């Protein structure tokens, strides 16, 4: 790496931070909404889908 590495590092960390936190927020909210839905007599399969997807999503972040 030449002397511009701080810019490159900032760019990559920023991207990881933004996309990672958005994904985490999204999946957490999905899980909570699904639990609420299930509590209200809603579709439990949606909750399963959310939990299954969550692990994949966290790898993304």
């Amino acid at each position, binding site marked *: 790496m030449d002397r511009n590495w701080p810019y490159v590092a900032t760019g*990559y960390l*920023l*991207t990881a931070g933004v996309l990672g936190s958005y994904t985490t927020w999204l999946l957490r909210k999905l899980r909570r*909404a699904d639990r609420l839905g299930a509590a209200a007599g809603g579709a439990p399969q949606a909750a399963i889908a959310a939990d*299954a997807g969550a692990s994949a999503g966290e790898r993304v972040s």
Partner: protein
Amino acid sequence: MSAQSRSVWQTALGAVAALAVGATVVMALFVVPADGGRDAFVRGTGQGDAYRLLFLHVPSAWLAYLAFGVTALASLLWLFPRTRALHWDLLAGASAELGVIFTGLTLALGSLWGKPIWGQWWAWDARLTTTAVLFFLYLGYLALRRVGGSPEQRAMRSSIAALIAFADVPIVHFSVSWWTTLHQDGSVFNAKMQIHIQDTSMQATLLLGVAAFTVLYAYLVLRRVQLLAVEEGLAERELEAAIAQRVAAAGARPREAVSI
């Protein structure tokens, strides 16, 4: 498709997105050579390592445009009576949200690249300027989505706003690029954002980056729509319960005959 198999698909999509993005990062940071080689960078004919930012910048920019295109398409499908369904509005909203995120990233990454190469954080480059206008256009769109009302009202309002914003994109792009070519400041714009592709690994990495971000977008937009749909469903169920409650409450009271 059953919920079970849908969740499997989604998990797979998420995993592919994660792997592809990871692979892009590894390729971009550790595999491809510096632009023009170290000597070229020292001599000032190459961009050295700074250009590695473009492996994120270019896919982000592509995604921003794709996301806004999807928003416009979904809005059109909502407006067209034969395909009118609320999930198009949810898709438009989800896609615009991701579009704004990717537009923001594009601007930030462009600035980070511009500082070492142009010597300044911001240059009035046509594409950068257009992207900045886009960012605010869709920020306004997202603000409009949050103002309340029934789902149908929101869908009508936002789908028309989305198409108005989308119609503006070519006009903005055209006027801005015209403006910058007419009044160019010279030296600052010598370094173009394009990568001088001397190496197939660069090309492959760029393509991989675009593909990876596209898959990531697909995964995120699906999940976002899902979240919006669940929330919409909850609100809908509350409303149904409220209607039932009103009916029951009124029915419980004695109905005295009214005569005049």
